[in-house]
């Protein structure tokens, strides 16, 4: 237990500890949040708790694109108006939201759930690569857009996938440069993303 925590009632200490585990929440923020929740109404506290439980109980991965969803296949995979010859590969579900906001992309997606990073113990076999390859078996996909993050780990992942997919006779492209290096796709604005999509190049 962190020494920053003051001795306090057990349920309080437990909540602070749980909040402290969340990314971006330090000991002081955790305390502040916990005291806030203590003074919140019963309904508000229950609503938050139920939302968190529902997240774990109801969210599943789409059997096709591996995006988080309530039904599988997900609404994007089911949408018949979308271009099934095009798959955009992203690291995380959040990036699909960013790309959807551009309204310009009409293909399908595939979520890897990470990027190759040996120091974090993440290799290709820990990503949803096998699931991606399975989707390419029926020869309906003509182009794969690799939209990993513009950092070392994203580049390593892009190179790995390109080596794997190019021999299958499928066109492999990646987003045009112009995204600031080291920045996350998730935070790129729509104009930048649209331009990156339109200007995509052969790997």
């Amino acid at each position, binding site marked *: 237990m962190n020494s920053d925590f003051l001795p306090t009632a057990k349920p309080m200490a437990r909540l602070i500890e749980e909040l402290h585990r969340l*990314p*971006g*929440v*330090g*000991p*002081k*923020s955790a305390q502040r949040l916990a005291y806030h929740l203590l003074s919140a109404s019963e309904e508000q506290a229950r609503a938050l708790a139920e939302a968190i439980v529902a997240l774990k109980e109801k969210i599943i991965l789409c059997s096709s694109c591996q995006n988080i969803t309530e039904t599988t296949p997900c609404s994007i995979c089911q949408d018949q108006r979308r271009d099934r010859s095009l798959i955009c590969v992203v690291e995380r579900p959040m990036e699909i939201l960013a790309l959807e906001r551009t309204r310009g992309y009409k293909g399908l997606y595939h979520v890897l759930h990470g990027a*190759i*990073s*040996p*120091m974090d*113990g993440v*290799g*290709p076999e820990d990503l949803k690569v096998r699931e991606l390859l399975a989707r390419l078996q029926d020869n309906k996909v003509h182009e794969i857009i690799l939209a990993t993050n513009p*950092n*070392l*780990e994203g*580049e*390593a992942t892009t*190179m*790995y996938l390109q080596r794997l997919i190019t021999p299958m006779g499928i066109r492999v492209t990646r987003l045009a440069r112009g995204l600031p290096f*080291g*920045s*996350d796709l998730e935070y790129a604005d729509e104009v930048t993303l649209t331009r990156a999509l339109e200007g995509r190049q052969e790997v």
Partner: protein
Amino acid sequence: MRITHLNATNFRNYRSLEIDLLPHITIIQGDNAQGKTNLLEAIHVLAITRSHRTSSEKDLINRFALEEVPVFSRLCAFLTKWNDEYKIEMLLRLDDRLATDSGSDHGPASGASVRKSVKVNEAGRRASDYVGFFNTVMFSAGDIDLVTGTPGVCRRYLDMVISQTAAGYLRKVQRYNRVLTQRNHLLRQMQDGRSTPEQLEFWDRELVDNGSYIVVQRRHLVEQLNSLAPDLHRDLSGGVEEMQIEYLASTGAGDSEDKIKTDFRRRLEQSRRKEVSQGVTLTGPHRDNLQFLVNGTGVSRYGSRGQQQTVALAVKLAEARYMHGRAGEAPVLLLDDVFSELDGSRRRHLLEAVTSFQQVLITTVDMGCFTPSFLSAASLYKVRDGDLSKV
């Protein structure tokens, strides 16, 4: 370039420090542990965004300020550069939150929860883009470590100088270090069969590309220092000794980027098996070293302390001249209590060499180090327990 005004809040033993600085020589006298070095460090930190004395940035924050909310330390200076005025500012904040975001400038190694931000004329800058905007050269008693210390000291020295003169160098070094960490992890995973050699390809390419750039820059700097240091050394040593810096690149003796890349790649291939069994990358600029020769003999091993000191001093003076030439304007020189250890003749030569610079800040315990005529041309200050007063 020169600083016209310095303002520090909660930095080391200063709760608040304000000083107007004139051009030419400023001498700050004080007993040990009163804050002389801290003042020069403040200026140096403003230039390179890190301390030459500590890797723990929390140490830079005043210990009383650590009890307050928010915990911060702020450095601000007005700088004259090419007759233009700039306000440069650096804020260190102790962050409540953990360093979890990987997209920041800090890199994974920082670990500490101190957040740095830099501003020029109120506009935020990335530290890696800012370094080099304001140039200083710090002389301290620890400079001798460059000659006698570990290879790591030499590499940090080269990187510190180059990051101030070559835009983008710092970012390459950061990228290289991350590649190195990733590659070493991969080698260890290959050791117990959790990964395959094909996985290395990407990291090898990045290692060679970024590493070769670093080697080219380091080789260039050593050449430049070699064109300046021997003359300065001859003056300091009374004209009888010839010094030389040798750059011992782990990738070999090649000097063009292409040759370095080829050699680097070949060495990686040759040591592949050894690398896997040891789980570390054995070739690359992280293994570079410098050798300092006087009359052809390695001075770190066989030299006297006086010889080692003279070589270090010549290298620092060469650095100052090189920065001057490179930036077109003289860097601010910071001399932290370096005179007391020098004998009369080297003291005289050093004073002579520095008077030609636009702004020089000198700290000393003993005013007797300087001649009356030198003192009469200087601005004098006294520092006591974090309080600075004009003499």
